[in-house]
């Protein structure tokens, strides 16, 4: 029996689907086929349109078609004034949030794909005239469109594959684990994210780690130094395996020369400061690495700065390496 998936989009950009199509080794369709996953309907991929698609939704609601996973991409729009009419599913005159609630009630698992579906994301950014929220979170607060107590038929709360966008593998691996019955409540973190990627930090594997160690910092875009001190990077606190799994054949935000903006977290869209500028008090970044006592950070940073090798100090503010690591012949030769 195939593991069946229905994918619907609401208040979002569709970027998680576009990212999903970037899946490699093998391509997305081969991955799904190999895992016994059948996409009953996906807005970008399926043949069925209009009434043909509506028939499928009816079959699912009536129990004629089993649904193993309902994947929702995009935030749920509750406005205006609680009507949900900021998104009426085309061809149905019915708000998407109502469709989602009915389908979630019959699905074995409910998967929020992307930060919008998980927590509201950019779609819920201030002033949030849409009254947008996630499936089971409203920013940091449990609740959202389905309520904090919601459990899908399979027993799990909404699985939040957060990210803006999501890495294709985060989505396919989540679906594969669900299909194998290998994802249980212990496999999710406090924000409902699968721990297989969310228990990593973006800092892990960052190519700027040596600059970080010595607080050799970049001041402007294209410079090679650490982006934590000045340029808004919060990779030391952000959950995600971006710098070990890598994107589009080898990239990541920090490898692309710009800050990690913590896009897998609730409310990342409201950092409280410009995204690409680090907020500081008395010259010390307000947001410190996860788990690190502030006094230690200040002490270590001062020491590290004092000890910064000239190579790192100069390379940090250049867009290419101007000083190479020295080649030394060991003394015993």
């Amino acid at each position, binding site marked *: 029996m195939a593991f069946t998936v229905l994918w619907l989009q609401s208040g979002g950009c569709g970027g998680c689907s576009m990212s999903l199509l970037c899946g490699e080794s093998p391509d997305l369709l081969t991955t799904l086929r190999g895992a016994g996953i059948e996409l009953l309907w996906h807005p970008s991929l399926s043949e069925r349109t209009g009434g043909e698609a509506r028939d499928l939704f009816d079959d699912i609601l009536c129990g004629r078609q089993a649904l193993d996973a309902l994947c929702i991409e995009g935030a749920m729009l509750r406005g205006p004034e609680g*009507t949900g009419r900021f998104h009426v599913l085309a061809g149905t005159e019915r708000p998407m949030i109502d469709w989602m609630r009915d389908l979630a009630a019959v699905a074995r698992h409910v998967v929020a794909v992307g930060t919008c579906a998980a927590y509201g994301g950019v779609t819920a950014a201030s002033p949030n005239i849409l009254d947008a929220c996630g499936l089971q979170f409203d920013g940091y607060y449990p609740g959202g469109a389905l309520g904090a107590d919601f459990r899908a038929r399979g027993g799990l709360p909404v699985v939040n594959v957060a990210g803006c966008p999501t890495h294709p593998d985060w989505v396919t691996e989540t679906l594969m684990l669900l299909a194998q019955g290998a994802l249980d409540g212990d496999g999710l973190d406090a924000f409902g994210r699968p721990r297989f990627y969310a228990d990593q930090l973006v800092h892990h594997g960052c190519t700027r780690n040596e600059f970080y160690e010595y607080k050799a910092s970049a001041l402007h875009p294209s410079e090679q130094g650490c982006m934590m001190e000045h340029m808004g990077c919060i990779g030391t606190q952000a959950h995600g395996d971006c710098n070990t799994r890598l994107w589009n054949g080898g990239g990541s935000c920090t490898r692309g020369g710009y800050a990690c903006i913590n*896009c897998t977290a609730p409310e990342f869209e409201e950092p409280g400061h410009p995204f690409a500028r680090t907020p500081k008090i008395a010259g010390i970044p307000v947001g410190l690495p996860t788990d690190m006592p502030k006094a230690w950070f200040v002490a270590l940073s001062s020491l590290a700065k004092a000890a910064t090798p000239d190579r790192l100090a100069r390379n940090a503010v250049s867009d290419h390496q101007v000083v190479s690591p020295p080649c030394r012949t060991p003394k015993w030769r």
Partner: protein
Amino acid sequence: MSGMTEQGTTRLVVGPFNRVEGDLEVRLDIADGQVRAAQVNATLFRGIERILEGRDPMDALAIAPRICGICSVSQSHAVALALAGVMGIGPAANGQVATNLILATENLADHLTHFHLFFMPDFARADYEGRPWFARAHARFAAMRGTAARSILQTRALLLHVMGVLAGHWPHTLAIQPGGVSRGVGMQECARLGSILAGVRAALEENLFGTVLEEVAALADVAALETWRTQGPQGDFRLFLEIAADLELERSGRAYDRFLSYGAYPGGLAAGEEARLWPGGLFVDGGTRALEIAAVTEDHAVSHMDDHDHPHPPFAGSTIPRLRDGAAYSWCKAPRLSGLPYETGALARQLVAGQPLARDLVARGGGNVLSRVVARLVESARLLIAMEGWVRMLRPGAPWCHVQGAVPDGRAVGMTEAARGALGHWLRVEGGRIAGYQIIAPTTWNFSPRDGSGTPGPLERALVGAPVRPGERAPLSVQHIVRSFDPCMACTVH
């Protein structure tokens, strides 16, 4: 859903309309086996313009790309251009070339996605069983099962490795900056970019075109296209031409034949020159005209928006959503240039750029399903050839990004091209904050609702006369026409 309206006219509502980006509903009034009138309804409102207001101007670089997952880089580029306009700076030379490569990668990936995954699968529907080409179309393009789907996903993923090298990832990069790009690369990475593009070229030449890109780029007129259809190299392009001739797609989906391009890829025509690869302008009545951007307005007459009593220039525009009864039917506004609707996209770009086949196709049959799709494929070939040249123009060691100071007060419009057409961001900065941000996306032009004078948008016009066979719930002719525009509804309702 359907229902009878006046005098034998049937109302048909088609939705959810998939294999377009975002949610779309099309309402059709049908009589005598033809569409008599159409209303295009964007059923989702996003409100990104309102989210941008009041923020630090540089934050638009993080927020605005998230308007759209398929035009993300185009949105990002429009932000960077608007900010650069306010700041009075331009990109470093390497930054310019890298930005062109990043934007072209997205445009090309979108064209390939559109043709293989969104547009062609309709010809593999059982409705066409019995056509001479059906077995081949089905084998190649059946949704999710055809051989083309898997192979194009691999090619697309390979192409998007350009983003892994130059832009961190796709979608939603912060690499494009007002002063250039955030990522400088070395000679080794330039070599890597070359090999990625070589891989994409090989795949397209093998499967899509059946021959070298240069032969596609050189297609000069409809006679040459006819020869390709009957004697050309075997490939998906020729298969499409065969289908198009059989179904007379050149007679389907004609709108107003007024075309708009903002132009793209500055410095992209030749090294050391400032000219754009695709120049901006209008194409009307068989010739090009200068574009006067100040003549652009948006009309909310039938949009669920306040301020619907008169059209607004974007710098004075507003986005205050309000569900209205009566005539209003879409969240989409109605952009007009000098009061007229315009079509935008690859066909418009190639017309303004003077590509002879595009001009000949339009001289004979106007903008239609065939000419839009052919223009997209010809542009794909031309773009990939240009990209190979741009990789050779990168100069490791030279600057990638100029130093960017604070954003002063002022206003500017950032104009670029997404795969599906002209994209503009109208930015006003006051007191160091975004005071106004208005966006007109390509599908806002193409899928515009009616304006205050009752003039339908381009798609609404293009659907009139589309044949509807008895019992069709989602008429195939309508599906071909809608998808021929490669719509992005996420952008439309930003």
